[in-house]
């Protein structure tokens, strides 16, 4: 029980930890404060609790596919916040800085809602059995610790990359994350029969199984799917290209603070 709790919770935490680390790296490189992450996480946790408590009602909507539609809306929301953030990253006026903080806060809040509600549902069901409470709490605590450590490792890892490739790398990773969000949103809409799936493009499950550790890590990092459908691939690459383009255009700006190293 402890191990399966650890895996379930860690899977959910990894994605949120990743986007938080990426956005914090950007703040750090811009010399901006990253303190917004706390209210963002708290707002996300409240949202997740609300979503989890309404799950039965939500599930009934849209002919029993309300959960997919809600998740797709959350993922699309995260993508739009990242796109807005990319646009605002350019020349930093005071007003733009405030707006950027807002879009980053929203992106993290929505990510925490999306991942958090699954953890809460998982836990609420099992907490009813007294003998499961201890393994659950230990598993969840371990998973939170591991997830936070991977996030921190990622954060400091990126900061230790030399300044020139770091900018491209950080923006590239954000664009990949955005593509992943759109691809997951497309998958939700396929699952609820709102979008056609199209052909399965390839099957790499023998090469890198999705249920392997590497597969799971790649899933969290870049949205790896062993058998992606055409619609998902279009959403992924379209989302990636648009976001990378926006970020590249916005940061190609005269006195761009993003290219400078603000570390003391």
């Amino acid at each position, binding site marked *: 029980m402890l191990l399966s709790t650890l895996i379930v919770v860690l899977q959910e935490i990894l994605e949120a930890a990743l986007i938080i680390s990426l956005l914090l790296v950007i703040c750090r490189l811009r010399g901006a404060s990253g303190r917004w992450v706390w209210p963002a996480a708290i707002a996300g946790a409240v949202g997740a609790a609300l979503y989890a408590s309404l799950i039965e009602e939500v*599930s009934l909507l849209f*002919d029993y596919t309300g959960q997919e539609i809600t998740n797709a809306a959350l993922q699309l929301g995260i993508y739009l916040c990242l796109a807005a953030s990319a646009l605002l990253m350019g020349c930093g006026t005071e007003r733009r800085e405030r707006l950027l903080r807002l879009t980053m806060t929203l992106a993290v809040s929505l990510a925490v809602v999306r991942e958090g509600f699954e953890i809460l549902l998982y836990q609420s069901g099992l907490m009813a059995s007294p003998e499961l409470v201890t393994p659950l709490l230990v598993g969840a605590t371990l998973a939170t610790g591991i997830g936070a450590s991977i996030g921190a490792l990622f954060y400091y890892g990126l900061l230790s990359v030399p300044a020139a490739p770091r900018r491209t790398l950080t923006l590239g990773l954000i664009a990949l994350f955005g593509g992943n969000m759109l691809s997951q949103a497309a998958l939700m809409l396929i*699952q609820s029969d709102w979008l056609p799936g199209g052909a399965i493009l390839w099957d790499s499950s023998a090469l890198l199984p999705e249920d392997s550790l590497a597969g799971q890590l790649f899933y969290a990092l870049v949205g790896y799917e062993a058998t992606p459908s055409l619609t998902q691939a279009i959403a992924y690459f379209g989302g990636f290209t648009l976001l990378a383009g926006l970020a590249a255009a916005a940061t190609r700006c005269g006195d761009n603070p993003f290219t400078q190293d603000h570390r003391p």
Partner: protein
Amino acid sequence: MKVPLLPRVAALAALIAAPLAIAAPPVVEIEIRDHLFFPSTVRVPARTKVKLVVINRDPTAEEFESYELNREKIIPGGATSVIFIGPLAPGEYPFFGEFFPKTAQGRVIAE
């Protein structure tokens, strides 16, 4: 000649509904009881979209998950839910309940 309105509307509705009725995907039901899937083997037609209706009889939530089917959905305790799968190439597609992976296992066979 004046045709009464009601039959005309009915005929029109039938015209619109007929292709929809034909296109409606086959429905397959799966129940979750005591963290097990019933039936644990589900046969579905290949190359056709199928509507899986998953009924969770347990008080606890379960997550229907399948890497092979590319599907993942939480079924709240005591709730009914719908997951569309396919069109699938003929073959076997395992699925499991992520919240109770040791017991809740099953497979879809497309043929």
